[in-house]
């Protein structure tokens, strides 16, 4: 472990992050909401801390090792959660405790979208903008942004990239150099965001809302400027734009890159993970519609169709936008959608959850066991897109699944121990661990009422979910620290 190298990079990353305090200052001055002081103070504090951390280690030239990568990423996400909370805490409005500020900031950065704030509509615009921006930065990963901007991270950049990028197979680079790969991902990300904002504008949003919601949509985040979320706009066009870009955001960005570069859009359909994801979304939407139709609560069929599809996609991709009170829907449906969020989006996307490819592999293995019972001596490789998947990956998927379930159980029991009922505890952990956002029961609208301990447990769950558990949990193992 080379602590100096870690320290040097942490310092640099903090300075990079401090720059993200500047756009809200602009927004604040533009709208004259008077919150710019908080952002400037946060900016100054972060630059100062960053430089102070960096200075003693600036001469260190050692490359990051594999282990250091985990350390840097986890430390940085933890530090980031606190640093991102600074302006929320410092700003006179909203008046929040440190816990609430950190909860909000982590929920933003991990693209969860769970909020403890009530009365969003009345908050200063710069604060609203800042929350959306946090989601957008966390979506593709602020460390991947740093890798794109700082070429000197070099080989070490790969270990950072791997520790932050979601998915079971992380060795695929789009281009030979890691810096370029990171840059390409960000280019794709920015373009999709721009397209999404344009879509919202055309659908009738005002520019401020369009940009803010585009940030949260493409990042699969779920923050909104309004307490009523997307429901505020009461527009079918807005909802369909949102559905489209939630789907786009939940697809592997590497796949977007290759499909665009080659101009072959059938690549989406030919990619086994993406195909499975799209089928799943269609199936789930159909099931939701059927359920709602049979329950017969709705008077307006168009409204029903829009709500059904929107809510199914929003929850299953782990975005967490809402248009209706879906937690009041007939019995099994909210839980079904919550379970769908465990599958989440594709690997290498901004979505949370277990990721489609892992679930696909789990299903295929289950099927293999069945075939094996019939043909005990058969050689049956697990295949994905016509290629056998290496045993190592298959093992890793099982390991990940087991740990995910284990972590989920422990955290849910901890939540119940703080005095919450089972539905609330279950849905709160599912919604935070999967980086979804809204849950059921007490946390259906916001997380304001779950108590300080409960909030901290949720913060932990959100970080675990975003860093796919292992990156974070590895720091608490003996093996990692053994020399």
């Amino acid at each position: 472990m080379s602590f100096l190298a870690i320290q040097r990079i942490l310092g640099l990353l903090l300075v990079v992050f401090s720059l993200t305090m500047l756009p809200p200052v602009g927004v604040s001055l533009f709208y004259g909401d008077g919150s710019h002081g908080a952002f400037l103070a946060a900016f100054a504090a972060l630059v100062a801390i960053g430089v102070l951390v960096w200075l003693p280690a600036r001469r260190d030239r050692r490359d990051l090792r594999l282990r250091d990568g985990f350390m840097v990423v986890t430390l940085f996400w933890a530090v980031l959660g606190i640093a991102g909370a600074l302006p929320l805490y410092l700003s006179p409005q909203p008046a929040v405790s440190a816990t609430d500020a950190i909860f909000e900031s982590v929920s933003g950065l991990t693209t969860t979208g769970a909020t403890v704030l009530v009365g969003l509509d009345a908050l200063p615009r710069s604060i609203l903008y800042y929350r959306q921006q946090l989601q957008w930065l966390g979506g593709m990963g602020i460390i991947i942004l740093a890798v794109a901007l700082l070429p000197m991270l070099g080989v070490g950049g790969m270990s950072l990239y791997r520790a932050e990028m979601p998915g079971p197979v992380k060795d695929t680079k789009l281009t030979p150099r890691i810096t370029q790969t990171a840059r390409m991902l960000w280019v794709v990300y920015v373009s999709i965001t721009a397209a999404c904002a344009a879509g919202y504008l055309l659908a009738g949003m005002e520019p401020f809302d369009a940009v803010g919601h585009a940030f949260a949509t493409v990042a699969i985040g779920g923050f909104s400027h309004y307490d009523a979320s997307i429901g505020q706009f009461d527009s079918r066009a807005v909802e369909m734009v949102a559905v489209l870009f939630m789907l786009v955001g939940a697809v592997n960005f590497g796949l977007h890159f290759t499909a665009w570069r080659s101009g072959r859009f059938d690549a989406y359909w030919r990619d086994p993970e993406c195909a499975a994801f799209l089928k799943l979304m269609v199936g789930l939407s159909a099931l939701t519609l059927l359920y709602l139709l049979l329950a017969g609560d709705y008077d307006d069929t168009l409204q029903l169709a829009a709500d059904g599809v929107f809510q199914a996609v929003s929850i299953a991709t782990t975005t967490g936008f809402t248009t209706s009170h879906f937690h009041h829907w007939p019995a099994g449906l909210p839980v079904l959608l919550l379970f769908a969020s465990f599958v989440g989006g594709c690997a290498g996307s901004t979505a949370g959850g277990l990721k489609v490819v892992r679930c696909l592999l789990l299903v295929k293995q289950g099927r293999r066991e069945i075939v094996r019972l019939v043909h005990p001596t058969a050689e049956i490789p697990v295949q994905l897109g016509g290629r056998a998947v290496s045993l190592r990956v298959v093992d890793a998927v099982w390991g990940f699944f087991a740990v995910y379930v284990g972590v989920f159980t422990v955290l849910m029991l901890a939540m119940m121990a703080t005095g919450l009922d089972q539905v609330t505890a279950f849905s709160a952990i599912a919604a935070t661990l999967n980086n979804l956002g809204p849950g059921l029961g007490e946390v259906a609208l916001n997380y304001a009422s779950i108590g300080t301990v409960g909030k901290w447990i949720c913060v932990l769950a959100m970080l675990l979910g975003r860093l796919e558990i292992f990156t974070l949990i590895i720091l608490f193992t003996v093996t990692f620290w053994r020399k």
Partner: protein
Amino acid sequence: MKIIILGAGQVGRTAAYHLAREEANDVTVVDTNDHLLRDLQDRLDIRTVAGNAAHPNILELAGAATADMVVALTNSDEVNMVACQVAWTLFRTRTKIARIRSLAYTGHEGLFFDTDSPPPDGAGFPVDVYISPEEIVTQYIERLIRYSGALQVLEFADGRVRLVGVKAVKGGPLVGQQLRSIREHLPNVDARVVAIYREGGSILPEGDTIIQHGDEVFFLAATEDMRKVMVELRRVEDAVKRVVIAGGGNIGLRLAQRIEDRYQVKLIERDQARARRISETLRSTVVLHGDAADEELLIEENIDSADVFCAVTNAEESNILSAMLAKRLGAHRVMALINRPAYAEMMQSGSIDVAISPQSVTIGSLLAHVRRGDVVRVHSLRRGAAEAIEAIAHGARGSKVVGRRVEEIKLPKGATIGAIVRGQDVIMGHHDTVVEEGDHVIVFLTDRRHVEAVERLFQD
């Protein structure tokens, strides 16, 4: 430059390492072995693709459509040749370099052609450059045997100039003297000391630098003069007569074939069938079946009167051990083929006279094609830390090199212009020498990180 390296073997890995550490190169490595690739990707900033290197779909995945260069270094000549053919036919890759080991292919005129100047009928394999690492290493060892006392002998300008690394030994007339006294010692010889390495660090040689016992001195001289300079740095050594080669593999056999007419050669091979087979192809070499680390055998074969013992088996550990043993039993000079740079470093400062690193010997022939500017030859020295470059000076007006005196040329730190070859003449780089159009300029760099600055000088 976008480069695809096929094969992640010893040579492929070294090539990837050297190429990827230059910021300007984008390197993709293709191999069938997943584990090797994963390991390589952990250490280098490259992309890897698993699969058969000659298959079009694999090459496409590796980015052949936009690649500037394909370097085929798999251990199969046939795969390398087909890969070059595929790259040219389907992707029109400009530069194709292949490792071709077998003399059966390289010995045939017209089998390969350079796609920049294709033959009228377009027949043959489109391999612009073929390299045979075994051949290069063999030639290198041959030179080391011929110039006993040299640590490295590298050729420039078709062999007209040589760069020689020598360990200075007490008793050599120049040792303990200032560098500028070389003129008095050798009034008719034009030689130039380009670098001195002392205790692991490099010293920029100046007129008043004093050469000490144990220094590694690198000098440039015309080929006919190099022996005279070497004598100044070491006591006179007996000419080499008896050579013992351990290992009858590719390199051992080739080496024996090349030198058996000049020296008395004994070759020790472990495998009986192989020993029998090579004894049939060799004329005067005595082929012994046995273990090169067998003390009895070495004593029996008069190892104490051997002038050179050269261990070139596939296993570097056994090369090291047998060379050490031979040295202890009285062999005059021992050399060992060592792949790992760390081993080579350890050994050369101690019990083995010359550690031969096959990768750094071969990598130069690859690097020359990657360099921008008109670079003819690159030699990698000191395990890749230093580099010697031979480049052609071009361009009339505004050139950073042509028409300028050596002292006017803005060289990066640690770089020296060693020599200039103009037609048949070899001119040492004195401060007032003026570089002309078409000159081959030999630049020595103690720190290879400045390579790009030198390249820029020779770019038009």
